[in-house]
């Protein structure tokens, strides 16, 4: 029987959906439920990871330490994971203390073509005796050959798995199969996949990834994540069971966890809004959605126009300041007629 590890992004990617206003109560309630369901890895933190609370991408309600401390106390079976982007988080400012709070798995991420900035954070994690994964974000912006080159760098730095993210929710199943298949055939370490649901492909793309050889799949309960949300974790557990793919997760408990998220944490259940669909089509980072909506309102322009313009300029995650610039330019254009 095929086995996959499901890595749970609910308390990290879901932070985007709440504009980074996760509370301790949210973390306690969900961590207990995820642990009871036997979800192998539970990620916690700001949507853009450790040390990312900022005016640029959104200020966290809780600081990183409070989030990790709270989660750690309520996870016994599940391992505690964090997302770390060099450029936001440094070893001295951020990563060093994360280990004091009992982090087990560090997912060191970069834009899909910039793997060499992950070297020091991956090495440092390994030196601490913890598990390090490499994460290539916005992976639709590179072809499979480039992705493999970058993934090989991460593997050489010591990454024990490489996960490609469809951060914009831009893939169709054959795109996933093509890239994941190429990585799985050429890497020594396991390959992972992280879906977003902007084009309604979250589950289908995750299935395609497993069929192409992925062994780690990210999901979020009730899909709670940036933009249109992630692959819905409890659905994945059910679908994988149908396909004879073992996750080790208790379906009833996973459903309970998803109900808790819906009842106690989320403001609205993730759905493919018009803006999220455009975000996926234009290939722009899902985490931009709330910022784009704010800027559209502030400058009285169409959020869809902002997304298509950002897509044309090939912006990457972390460039949220471009949203304001583009909104201002669109406003000027309208004024000039």
């Amino acid at each position, binding site marked *: 029987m095929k086995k996959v590890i499901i890595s749970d992004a609910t308390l990290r990617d879901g932070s985007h959906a709440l504009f980074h206003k996760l509370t301790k109560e949210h973390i306690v309630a969900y961590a207990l439920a995820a642990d009871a369901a036997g979800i192998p890895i539970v990620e916690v933190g700001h949507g853009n990871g450790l040390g990312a609370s*900022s*005016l*640029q991408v959104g200020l966290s309600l809780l600081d990183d330490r409070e989030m990790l401390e709270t989660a750690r106390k309520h996870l016994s079976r599940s391992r505690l994971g964090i997302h770390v982007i*060099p*450029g*936001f988080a*440094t*070893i*001295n*400012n951020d990563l060093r203390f994360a280990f004091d709070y009992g982090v087990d798995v560090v997912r060191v991420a970069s*834009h899909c*073509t*910039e793997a*060499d*900035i992950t*070297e*020091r954070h991956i090495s440092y994690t390994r030196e601490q005796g913890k598990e390090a994964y490499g994460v290539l974000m916005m992976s639709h*912006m590179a072809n499979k050959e480039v992705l493999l080159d970058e993934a090989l760098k991460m593997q050489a730095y010591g990454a024990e798995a490489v996960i490609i993210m469809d951060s914009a929710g831009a893939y169709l199943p054959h795109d996933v199969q093509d890239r994941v298949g190429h990585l799985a055939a050429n890497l020594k370490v396991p390959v992972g996949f992280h879906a977003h649901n902007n084009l309604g492909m979250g589950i289908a793309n995750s299935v395609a990834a497993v069929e192409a050889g992925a062994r780690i799949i990210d999901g979020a309960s009730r899909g709670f994540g940036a933009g249109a949300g992630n692959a819905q974790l409890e659905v994945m557990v059910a679908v994988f069971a149908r396909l004879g793919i073992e996750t080790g997760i208790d379906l009833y408990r996973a459903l309970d966890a998803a109900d808790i998220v819906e009842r106690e944490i989320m403001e609205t259940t993730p759905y493919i809004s018009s803006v999220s669909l455009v975000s996926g089509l234009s290939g722009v980072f899902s985490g931009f959605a709330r910022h784009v909506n*704010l800027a559209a309102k*502030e400058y009285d322009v169409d959020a869809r126009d902002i997304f298509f313009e950002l897509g044309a*300029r*090939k*912006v*990457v995650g*972390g*460039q949220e*300041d*471009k949203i*304001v*610039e583009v909104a*201002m330019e669109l406003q000027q254009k309208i004024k000039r007629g």
Partner: protein
Amino acid sequence: MKKLKVAILGSGNIGTDLLYKVLRSSRLECSLFVGRNLSSKGMSRALSLGISVSDKGIQAIQDNPECCHIVFDCTSAMSHKIHSPILAGLGIIVIDLTPAKLGPFCIPAINLDACLGDVNVNMITCGGQASIPLAYVIGQTQQQVDYIEVVSTIASKSAGPATRLNLDEYIETTEKGVKMFSGCGKAKAILNLNPAEPCIDMQTTVYATVPKIDLPALKEGIAIMVEKIQRYVPSYNLIIPPTYENNRVIMSVRVKGMGDFLPSYAGNLDIINCAAIAVAEEFAMARIEGRQ
């Protein structure tokens, strides 16, 4: 005018771009260009320009300490920590372009004169050179500033291996500089690399949390500061003027380079190199006028 002799240590993007700027200077002369590999792009460029080169690293300066009055260190923070005591022992002034932060910080538009007495002047970071003058104006014009954040995005192609390996030092050094010059106790620096083709120009955004904003004073101060910076970085341009929105102050600059070594998108090379040249030329002037 008699030119002051300078050596460039490090033949990567920064060092090679700096060479072109030294060649253009009426007060500086590059007496030695030092790398570690004669076949590197930077070294062959220097050779083709008829510059004396060496592949012996810091040893080249130790072997011939008379070759220069000033060394520009364009290596990495880690290497600079080794170079600094050696050059100090040789009595050579160092203008440090790595984020090693050993010497006092210099932003020419703010504290050029104050740096002249020092033997090791640190140029902070490219993002620091672009953002700190703006953060300084925020500190000067506003009564209370709770927080300042600076975000730079540069083209992937303009970030060489040392820059990539020094990302943590970049952030910590930039944050320290922002705090020091603005007087604000809480600061954050973020750096993004964008691989888009054609390459994007360097862009830097400064945010601030200011409880009682004096926007007219801020706008006036920023306009004066931008003009000052343009004297040594001609294409430093304000693209988002100081704006108060969503409970934050935001402003943005774009820096185009002169296209010396890398094309004009690499404004990040220009801003730190132009600042370093401004410091070296001031040293040269001071020497001629007998101030040093």
